[in-house]
């Protein structure tokens, strides 16, 4: 009986190509949309999390200005080399200190130019910001303290100025300063805030101070803690040290700021959590819409199929034989549709994640949930009307319009 019914169900599916196609389409779209949505969402979330990691989650940034008094940063005096030295000597639990000064400057090579962000710092800047070298070498201690006209290029700057050719040894101009390219940084991509971290020209701190900025100010000090867990302690020490060095009376507002990347990372993570929840909600809606689509096509089948049930019953089919056939049809269509939906959903989200440059993360749970829900709706609404029709007197089923 099972084999016979299976053959009959498959024959019925093949025979009604359009109806079968539409039924499957509902399931394909329901399953595919949900899977694509959730997979892309997961990829974006993973990307943001990874970006925060790249930013350096042990990083603290000391910068002048306060945030509390008014909106935005108030102008305040910069730091000095002594501040940086004091941090290195007096604060415990830190790994590296990189005093930096930042300017935007026009960078020229041959007949090409590019406006980039020039950072003057020590060699340790690479470590605190988690940059790695693609080619060339780091700046030496001696070169940094001597203020040599040397630079390292970020991947974006290299691409803009040199295209495919090798910049090592070339002499570029940064504003009016000629300097030699000694290294190229490996690409890091965008930061969590959307900045291009590869649009950077790194030079010795003193070179930038003297020859570009014309002042000995330090605009911010990057500090990396020894471990993630010690960042809060380091932050407290940095704050009290800076208050003391900048002679801020007790009770007065800070005129500097210590930002903790750990805090920022947490804020970002909670933001992506919201994003994930939102995507989940959209996914739930598309699943529901897909479910209603499946339901509709199944119910629309009822009239024609009620007559079919009447015919089958009249020529001697048992109600349970007819029902088994309908159940098999619904299961086969739902399963096929579900498998196609999963395939298309994964393919679509793979293409989307590739073009958005986010990682492709398969979420197994959503495969099961989307498939299970759609299949359940498909089977339920394929079966229930048949169940109702099979209980009719065959004559009534035949008269059904």
């Amino acid at each position, binding site marked *: *009986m099972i084999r*016979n019914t299976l053959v*009959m169900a498959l*024959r019925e599916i093949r*025979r*009604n190509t359009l109806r079968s196609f539409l039924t499957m389409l509902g399931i394909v779209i329901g399953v595919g949309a949900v899977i694509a949505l959730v997979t892309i969402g997961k990829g974006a979330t993973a990307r943001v999390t990874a970006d925060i990691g790249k930013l350096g989650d042990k990083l603290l940034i000391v910068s002048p200005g306060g945030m509390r008094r008014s909106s935005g940063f108030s102008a305040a005096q910069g730091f000095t080399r002594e501040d940086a030295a004091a941090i290195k000597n007096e604060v415990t639990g830190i790994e590296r200190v990189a005093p930096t000064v930042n300017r935007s400057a026009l960078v020229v090579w041959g007949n090409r130019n590019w406006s980039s962000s020039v950072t003057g710092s020590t060699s340790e800047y690479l470590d605190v910001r988690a940059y790695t070298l693609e080619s060339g070498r780091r700046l030496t201690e001696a070169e940094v303290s001597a203020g040599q006209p040397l630079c390292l290029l970020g991947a974006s700057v290299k691409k803009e100025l040199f295209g495919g050719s090798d910049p090592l040894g070339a002499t570029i101009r940064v504003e009016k300063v000629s300097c030699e390219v000694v290294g190229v940084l490996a690409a890091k991509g965008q930061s969590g805030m959307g900045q291009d971290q590869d649009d950077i020209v790194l030079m010795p701190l003193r070179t930038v101070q003297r020859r570009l900025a014309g002042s000995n100010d330090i605009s911010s000090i990057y500090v990396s803690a020894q471990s993630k867990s010690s960042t809060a302690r380091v932050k407290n020490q940095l704050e009290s040290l800076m208050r003391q060095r900048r002679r801020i009376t007790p009770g007065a507002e800070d005129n500097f700021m210590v930002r903790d990347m750990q805090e920022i990372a947490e804020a970002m993570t909670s933001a992506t959590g919201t994003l994930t929840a939102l995507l989940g909600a959209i996914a739930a809606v598309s699943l529901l819409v897909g479910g209603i689509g499946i339901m509709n096509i199944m119910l629309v089948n009822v009239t*024609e199929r009620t*007559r*079919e049930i*009447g*015919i*089958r*019953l*009249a*020529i*001697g*089919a*048992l*109600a*349970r*034989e007819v029902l088994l056939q309908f159940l098999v049809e619904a299961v086969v269509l739902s399963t096929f549709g579900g498998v196609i939906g999963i395939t298309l959903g994964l393919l679509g989200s793979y293409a989307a994640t590739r073009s958005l440059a986010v990682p492709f993360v398969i979420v197994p749970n959503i495969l099961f949930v989307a498939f299970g829900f759609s299949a359940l709706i498909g089977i339920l609404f394929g079966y229930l009307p048949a169940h109702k029709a099979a209980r009719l*007197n*065959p*004559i009534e089923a*035949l008269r059904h319009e």
Partner: protein
Amino acid sequence: MNDTAKAPHAQAIVRFDGVYKIYGEGDTEVRALDGVNLRIDPGEFVAIMGSSGSGKSTCMNIIGCLDAPTRGGYFFRGVDVGALEPNQRALLRRHYIGFVFQGYNLLARTTALENVELPLVYRRVPAKERHQRAREALAAVGLSDRANHTPAELSGGQQQRVAIARALVCDPSLLLADEPTGNLDSAKKMEIMELLVRLNEERGITIAMVTHEPDMSGYVSRVMMFKDGRMVDDGAPADVAYAGPISQRPLSGRPSSPGSAR
């Protein structure tokens, strides 16, 4: 299955012993069948006639084991159908009864051959034998060359012949035809009636046909006339035809509907 020797109608295919079919209760009670006694013997070709509402369709549903009587005894080949479960009635239909309907009721988008095979599928006949028997049945109704056509590609008369082939393919003890010519023009009506007569005479298939068209009574061996849930006449077509109102007589080739006499 065999009745005791005392039973006087042991040979009958269909026997009604005071069959009632009552819908509703109390004031709204409708007696669709009001104590009907009848019998159909093997090899007969009977017409069940009457206007709409006369109870002839209810009668056919009960004969066809599609419905059970409210009261009274219905014996199909000696089996008391009233005592059977719906599934057991379905098995009786599967093994002994072939149906032909006014609206053909073939499966859409399904070839004539597959339609004819359908009853054999439920009888679990192996595929090879199924094909062969279905082809034979199609040949018997003269549609060998249309085996792979779907209903949409066939004329009404051809569809009805496929339906008859489907009813025949199981060698039923009883072929029940419900207004088999109702949707056809007069040339096709004759064609179908002649086919039924031939099947009855050549193969000895017992046929019961419900119709409201008096013209059709000319093809059958016996007519049962129904009125208001009772059988008011039963006999040779010539005798019964004149028992009805004058308007029902087959005077010319054009039948008039008995329903319009009301």
